[in-house]
């Protein structure tokens, strides 16, 4: 996208969008994982050292079923898309199939993620 220019809706729909969205979501999920894991480590450390009850509160949020849906999205997206990036970078001959690789990634990611969400939600609704 042009640097420092407002490109509107067409900017979002430009030709490189497929791989650009994968890049942007990769960064977003990376920061999500760092935030979740960092807070979880700090909270567990506080629980272990008995530094008040805030650690227990945060870990209760961390383990709630609706939060797991977000965490699973971040972890699964980052792992599978990272696998795509690493494979293409270590075998540069495959780079000409970049867009196809992203389509393949979404084809693998979507069923795994939807199945996981289905399991989480049905377990939560049945009180498991």
């Amino acid at each position: 996208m042009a640097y420092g220019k407002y490109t509107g809706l067409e900017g979002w729909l430009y030709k490189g969008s497929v791989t650009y969205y994968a890049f942007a979501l990769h960064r977003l999920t990376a920061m999500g994982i760092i935030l979740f894991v960092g807070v979880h480590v700090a909270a567990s450390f506080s629980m272990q050292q008995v530094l008040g009850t805030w650690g227990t509160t945060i870990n209760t949020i961390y383990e709630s079923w609706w939060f797991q849906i977000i965490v699973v999205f971040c972890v699964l997206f980052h792992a599978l898309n990272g696998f795509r990036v690493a494979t293409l970078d270590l075998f540069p001959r495959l780079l000409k199939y970049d867009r196809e690789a992203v389509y393949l990634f979404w084809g693998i990611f979507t069923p795994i993620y939807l199945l996981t969400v289905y399991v989480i939600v049905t377990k939560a609704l049945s009180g498991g």
Partner: protein
Amino acid sequence: MRPRYIPNRGINLDYLMWLFTRISGLGIILLSLIGLGSAMYMGARLQLDLPTVLRWTFMPNPSHVVNSNIPDVTLGWATAFWQIMQYLIIFFAFTHAANGIRMIVEDYLGHTFWQPFVRALIALVWIGMVIIGIYVVLGSAY
């Protein structure tokens, strides 16, 4: 976002960290699959809920599963093998994360007066997290 500084070609820290990010990423996927597969082999499907499986997958620490329905954690779940796996995952994950956050920050910060301070802060957090990780592995009673 600022215009990006293009590093020199050849073997230097930027190239080595670029390569490390790819290799450690694949390494974390491999370690996670070993953790997940072993957990399933040891009966996780009947003894663990999904959050516990996830926590074990990414950090095979006995404290992560001790409150589940496993009859005895010392049988398979708390061994020297899993301690080595934890050290590997701690080193790979925190180094991968610290370098990743450095790249994201420097894409917005650019080459400024603050860059060395930001790098020092990230390095400090990285060392701190690795030390906490080692403490957690050694501090797990099993």
